[in-house]
């Protein structure tokens, strides 16, 4: 089979796997690096015919998320599709290939004073395609929304090799179904994104970072206070945990004429909510706290993503306190705090802790997805949680897009 593929992509761009290509314990057979979208689709068409299981890969930073693959024959790497194809500053849009890293894209956009207002994990390695496929977002989501609200169009190679465009290149467009939203967050199970168009935002004229420390008891009040002055904050990130004081980082953006006043407003609110503002202007070293929640993991740690209605953070904190009193150790990062998205690390958790948290969260509409966990725990942990009543419909979508189930088989909700 390698020969056929080599014929399409060239012998230099097909190779055997190494340890670095293992996905959640599964070793694929080979790695292909097509150089054009149409080569991506030709490779897929062959895989589709032969029933080879394909794992699309960008920077590989989040390949461990989701269920372990049922099987994997081919890693389809998008690394060679890495160009920013078009930046139209006047229209505030950019079209970029899927394998371009977020950092490289931002660098290009910054030359014209613009940005993709998205700050996902590991921007230096994470690619546009991977960020869309996992719908990863960061603290800026509070002001600019998740990837689904920033993507205008995508080109996608479907499992059978169909290459289809959807959406458009303009910020406003309701012609046909909104397929970019279907693909965003689909974890590579419906098609391989080869290119995407985004709406952009201007880089802020001025930025201030503020850092506060909080005792555990005042986290809830602090969050409420920050929601009160939401117009003044571009992003807020809060770290808390059983073995640390809580730390909050606030990013203020605006006009040079207004930035000090905005920062002052945040300081006053924070102070009134019981935060220690004495070292507020210390350098904000820690926007990467989320990343560290994955990087300095103990082998026995489990990291999950939690979504809650935004005002329920106090509720969540009390749940966690209750767990702490049962000797469960945890750390968390409220990333897009006003939106209700956070990441939680549990140290040496029993599976029952995950189940218990999940059912409590469900009581107020929240959900929990396991992102990383100790080897061997995954099959047990029910990564995605309860699928809900739309699972059958999702299966039918998968069936339509990938009838032989060759794309990331088994990795998604309900074993899709």
């Amino acid at each position: 089979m390698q020969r056929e593929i080599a014929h399409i992509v060239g012998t230099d761009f097909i190779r055997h796997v190494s340890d670095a290509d293992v996905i959640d314990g599964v070793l694929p057979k080979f790695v292909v690096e097509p150089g054009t979208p149409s080569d991506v689709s030709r490779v897929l068409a062959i895989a589709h015919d032969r029933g080879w299981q394909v794992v699309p890969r960008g920077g590989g930073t989040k390949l461990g998320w989701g269920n372990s693959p049922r099987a994997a024959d081919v890693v389809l790497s998008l690394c060679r599709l890495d160009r920013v194809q078009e930046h139209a500053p006047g229209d505030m849009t950019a079209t970029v290939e899927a394998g371009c890293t977020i950092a490289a894209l931002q660098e290009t956009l910054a030359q014209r004073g613009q940005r993709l207002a998205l700050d996902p994990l590991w921007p230096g390695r994470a690619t546009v395609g991977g960020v869309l496929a996992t719908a990863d977002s960061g603290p800026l989501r509070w002001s600019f929304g998740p990837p689904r609200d920033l993507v205008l169009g995508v080109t996608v190679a479907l499992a059978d090799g169909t290459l289809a465009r959807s959406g458009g290149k303009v910020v406003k467009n309701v012609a046909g179904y909104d397929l970019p939203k279907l693909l965003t967050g689909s974890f590579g199970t419906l098609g391989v994104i080869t290119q995407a168009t985004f709406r952009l935002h201007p880089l802020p004229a001025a930025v201030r970072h503020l850092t506060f420390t909080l005792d555990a008891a005042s986290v809830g009040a602090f969050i409420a206070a920050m929601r009160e002055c939401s117009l003044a904050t571009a992003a807020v990130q809060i770290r808390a945990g059983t073995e640390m004081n809580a730390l909050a980082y606030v990013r203020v953006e605006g006009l040079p004429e207004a930035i000090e006043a905005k920062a002052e407003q945040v300081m006053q609110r924070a102070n009134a909510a019981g935060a220690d503002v004495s070292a507020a202007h210390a350098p904000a070293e820690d926007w990467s706290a989320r990343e560290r929640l994955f990087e300095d993991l103990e082998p026995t740690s489990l990291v999950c993503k939690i979504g809650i209605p935004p005002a329920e953070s106090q509720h969540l904190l009390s749940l966690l306190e209750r767990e702490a009193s049962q000797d469960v150790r945890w750390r968390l990062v409220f990333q897009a705090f006003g939106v209700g998205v956070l990441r939680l690390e549990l140290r040496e958790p029993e599976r029952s802790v995950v189940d218990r948290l999940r059912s409590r969260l469900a009581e107020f509409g929240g959900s929990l997805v396991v992102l990383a966990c100790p080897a061997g725990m995954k099959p047990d942990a029910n990564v995605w949680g309860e699928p809900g009543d739309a699972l059958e419909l999702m299966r039918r979508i998968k069936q339509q897009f990938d009838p032989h189930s060759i794309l990331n088989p088994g990795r998604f909700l309900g074993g899709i």
Partner: protein
Amino acid sequence: MSGSRHTRTLLLADIRTLLGEPSVLVRPEQLRTYECDGLTNFRVVPTAVVLPTNAEQVQEIVRLCHRDGVPFVSRGSGTGLSGGALPVEGGIVISLARLNRILEVDIPNERVVVEPGVINLHVTQKVAPYGYFYAPDPSSQSVCTIGGNVAENAGGAHCLKYGFTTTHVLGLEVVLSDGSLVTLGGKAPDTSGYDLCGVFVGSEGTLGIATKVTLRIVRRPEVVQTMVAAFHSTDAAGEAVSRIIAAGIVPAAAEMMDRLSLQAAEAAVHAGYPNCECLLLVELDGVAIEVEVLVAQVKEICSACGAFETRLARSDAERAAMWKGRKAAFAAMGRVSPNYIVQDGVIPRTALSAVLREIERMSRDTGLRVANVFHAGDGNLHPLVLYDRRIEGQEHRAEHLAAEILKLCVRTGGSLTGEHGIGVEKRDFMPEMFAEPDLATMQRVRIAFDPQSLSNPGKVFPRPRLCAERPGPYEPHPLETAGVAELF
């Protein structure tokens, strides 16, 4: 295609048992109201119109349709401008107007849960006392429903800054075409699975019927400032918009009107605009100190681009007057022309002058006037092609011109529609914008949701005209004649 007359009689008998006799309309004079939506030149008389009052009834009706293979069309207020709610021959219309309860107002979580028949403006009215608003604000907001907004992914002047309907719909309950009920998304962000809520919004009633909608509401900004600037040409006004955006300013709204639409608006609502070739309306909102600086910047940019007058609204009344003329623009066209066609194409903003010049040329060539009203900030044009139906052949030429304008938009890299939807009106233009594999990929979604094509068939996707449609003259929507748009 839709079962025999006999099955339809049985179906209606079953629906009568379910809803009661008065909620099933079959008499011709009752059906007339429902034979078209805001696109009045397409008409089809439905077999019946049914008026359920809750989601269970909707579910039961759809189950019965599914049993008998009878197509159905959901309908909100019927203000759609692309024929989305046009009945299908032999099918029934399911009106959602009676599902009009606001089910939950959750201020701390910034959510409102509504039934689909709730009127858009009622949501904002409900939450205004708490300092919130529902951001998507179509000009028809005092009459159109949230269900219709969801189906069309409705926009409005303030969507430039705040995003379209899809940005503000977090969860849906949907009755699928087999009568099953599914929950998509919810109050909390990032529920597991595909973003089917995002797919449903904008699907124009073809993927099922929304029976419950969870909306995000937005905190009112500290201050709002509205201004108008008068220019000698649309080019100059367009240049001003480009420079505003290039300066990194994101206005809450940026709207443009040309001389013809200004004349009409002035005649209709006496907005008191300056006499000019092109008017730019800009709204800025946010934190007080910041807005003050931005207003000064925008004024300066406008002057630099040749604005000979700028006016800042000094009171809510003045602000309302500025908006009134803009929001009444479609309705006002009746003052300057007996008939007109509204289009909704989108272009990259930087193509504005080129496209307007081309439209002007096309207008000269055909001898038909074109008025321009548009959401300048996001490149969404609403060219209004004016004509007189009584003059032999003019209507046909007007339709042709409107179509050519749409194709022009697509050629510049834009879209056939920014907010009104494809419906029946533009379905045959879809191949201008999408290649066959693109459309086939959308069909895969359709098939997954609705394998038998019972939910609003014949919309969105290109196909030959149905024989029961009586193509007829464009007529002003009753709401326009009644001047509803002037309420703003």
